[in-house]
């Protein structure tokens, strides 16, 4: 069978307990060690070097770096074993998408944890000075992963708009508190624009340049916050273009849990975006079928056609916030529906909705595998 569609993951996977506890300096249990051995065996990895490191009472910073690197190998092999075509490491060496970027940026200070939903939080930073590039924070990770696989890589990187939106700003806004007036709102808007464009030009762009220089060919810019302020979608477009201007690389954008209708028509002005990876399964029905009424979560695809947005779709076909395992047939029908709307299977890249870090490793594996199995079923139907 000819594979016409390529699958990829979006970003994060859960970190194994042995990785988390080592980083936190906590004592590992026999089960943690067993998991490292067992998953090593399942993934065809010689786990002995890792076990030796994990069993050390006192781990040096070099040991911890090595453990993080081995965690990347485990993440990468898990994704490969699931059959995903375009891979990375499940962001095993990173803390969290915002924290990783902000903690490597000059001018940012962290204040504490803020809840995202349920028992999920992120550490929120405040911009206290003009953001500055300290160093290419994904470079080492990229080089290590590139040396571990022959499959094509897609490097996820936090985008400037989300970076700015998820930060407090005490530098650009300063202390202009206008309570009960429209002047305050307009001052805040101007300050946000300056902040976000500075992040794009001074932090994100140099990071991408370093990755491309080291051989990265596909960079996915993660922008989950894009439609949070619908009136600022043009600002996202401006920041995306500023981040990627003049860089020769394939760029895609990942957006999730958002009102995608707000993207139109503004995203027509994105200059170098080849793919839009969006979450859909979370909002879709679980019944089989390829009619409009069967696929309520995918209706927004029509807007991409109506507005003639160039580029492909990264099609979220598995819900990353539940343990419900989509059948390959359900995945197949979601893909077939998308192909029907988009008019060309080459414009559809099946993916999980988002990073799978909130799922256990066995569930994440199964969701990725079903993404692949459903893709192959769809290809067979289309052949």
């Amino acid at each position, binding site marked *: 069978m000819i594979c016409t569609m390529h699958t990829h993951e979006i970003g994060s996977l859960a970190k194994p307990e042995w990785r988390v506890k080592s980083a936190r300096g906590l004592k590992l249990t026999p089960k943690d060690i067993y998991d490292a051995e067992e998953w090593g065996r399942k993934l065809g990895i010689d786990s002995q070097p890792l076990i030796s490191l994990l069993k050390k009472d006192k781990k040096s910073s070099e040991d911890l770096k090595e453990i993080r690197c081995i965690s990347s190998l485990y993440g990468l092999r898990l994704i490969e074993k699931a059959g995903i075509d375009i891979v990375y490491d499940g962001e095993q060496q990173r803390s969290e998408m915002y924290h990783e970027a902000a903690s490597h940026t000059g001018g940012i200070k962290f204040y*504490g944890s803020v809840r995202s939903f349920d028992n999920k939080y992120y550490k929120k930073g405040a911009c206290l000075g003009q953001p500055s590039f300290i160093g290419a924070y994904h470079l080492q990770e990229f080089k290590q992963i590139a040396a571990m696989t022959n499959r094509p890589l897609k490097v996820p990187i936090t985008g400037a708009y989300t970076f700015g939106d998820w930060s407090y700003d005490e530098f650009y806004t300063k202390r202009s508190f206008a309570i*009960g007036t429209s002047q305050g*709102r307009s001052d805040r808007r101007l300050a946000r624009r300056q902040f976000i464009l500075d992040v794009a030009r001074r932090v994100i762009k140099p990071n991408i340049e370093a990755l491309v220089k080291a051989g990265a060919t596909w960079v996915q810019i993660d922008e989950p916050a894009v439609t949070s*302020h619908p009136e600022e979608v043009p600002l996202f477009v401006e920041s995306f273009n500023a981040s990627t201007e003049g860089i020769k690389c394939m760029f895609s954008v990942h957006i999730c849990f958002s009102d995608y209708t707000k993207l139109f028509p503004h995203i027509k002005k994105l200059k170098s975006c080849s793919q839009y990876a969006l979450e859909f399964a979370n909002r879709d029905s679980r019944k089989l079928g390829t009619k409009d009424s069967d696929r309520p979560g995918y209706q927004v695809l029509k807007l991409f056609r109506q507005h003639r947005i160039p580029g492909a779709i990264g099609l979220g076909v598995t819900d990353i916030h539940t343990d419900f395992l989509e059948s390959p047939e359900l995945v197949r029908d979601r893909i077939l529906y998308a192909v029907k709307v988009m008019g060309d299977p080459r414009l559809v890249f099946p993916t999980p909705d988002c990073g799978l870090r909130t799922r256990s490793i066995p569930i994440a594996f199964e969701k990725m595998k079903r993404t692949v199995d459903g893709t192959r079923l769809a290809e067979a139907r289309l052949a």
Partner: protein
Amino acid sequence: MIPLSIELNGTFPRSEALVSATRDFDRKRIGEDELRRILLKQQDSLVQFQEKLGVINFSDGLLNWQDLFRPFSVFCQGIKPVTLTRFADTNTFFRQPSVSAKLQYTGQGISDFFRSSADKKWKATLPAPFYFARVAEDKHYGSIKKLALAFTDVLADLIIDLTKKSYKSFQLIDPYLGYWGANRSEILLVKETIGRLIEKTKASIIYQTSFNCSVDALKMLAETDLDGIGIDFFNTDINAVPSLGGRKALSAGCLDSRTSLVEDPKTLAQFIEQAIKKIKPRELKATANLDLQYVPVPIAQSKLLKLQAAIKLVNNKQK
């Protein structure tokens, strides 16, 4: 002299200890008893902090609510949490409530979600019927109006139960009116739900709007029998707010819960004086424009302490 006080608006941030405990609980590193111990510790500390602020109607901070709707799936039949949905323009999400059967209040487990004690007056924070009806997935009622009225009846039963547990004040949260807006018939529906709720409960209810509420909606709220109206003054122009003619309380959202910058007491005091002069409330409850959960605990506390200082400044001038 206009009575001035501080009230907490909606959900308070979880402490770093509670953040760690909830994560550890999810990963089965600690059990339910340990999580509850840490939760109660932060609740106690929050109550003590409110005592220090001179709060009259105490909030438990909704520290164990996963979102504003989730507890209703416990004490009300017919509601299930489903799709993860972004709340307005924040990076915070809630599970959309899905209504698949007739709503039926059971009261089961309400003590887990509403702390109370006889020595204090408590304030409950609840989703407004219109807000619920607009964001819920309706698989049963078939119209926003029917769903909103059915949820009003659930709230009425809940409020009646809570009044038996030292709850004296009820804050209905409605960001929908301000963020997404409402047409004329929807504004009338809001009015109908408020009338029905007050008729059934006779409770003291504050309708807390947020974002930029329209003049029409604010005028309608001012005409109801609500005890008070809440307004987000970082998004609503003070000139757009109708006079309350000394009949209602103003819950004035004058701390910006979306920024880490801590407000200056003098600026806050000037604003409070201006609000008293222009809006003419019966009393003013100073609060944040949205839930303080958008900033970490130390910042939330700093902001509230500045508000306390501002109120002292205004009270000194009023004397």
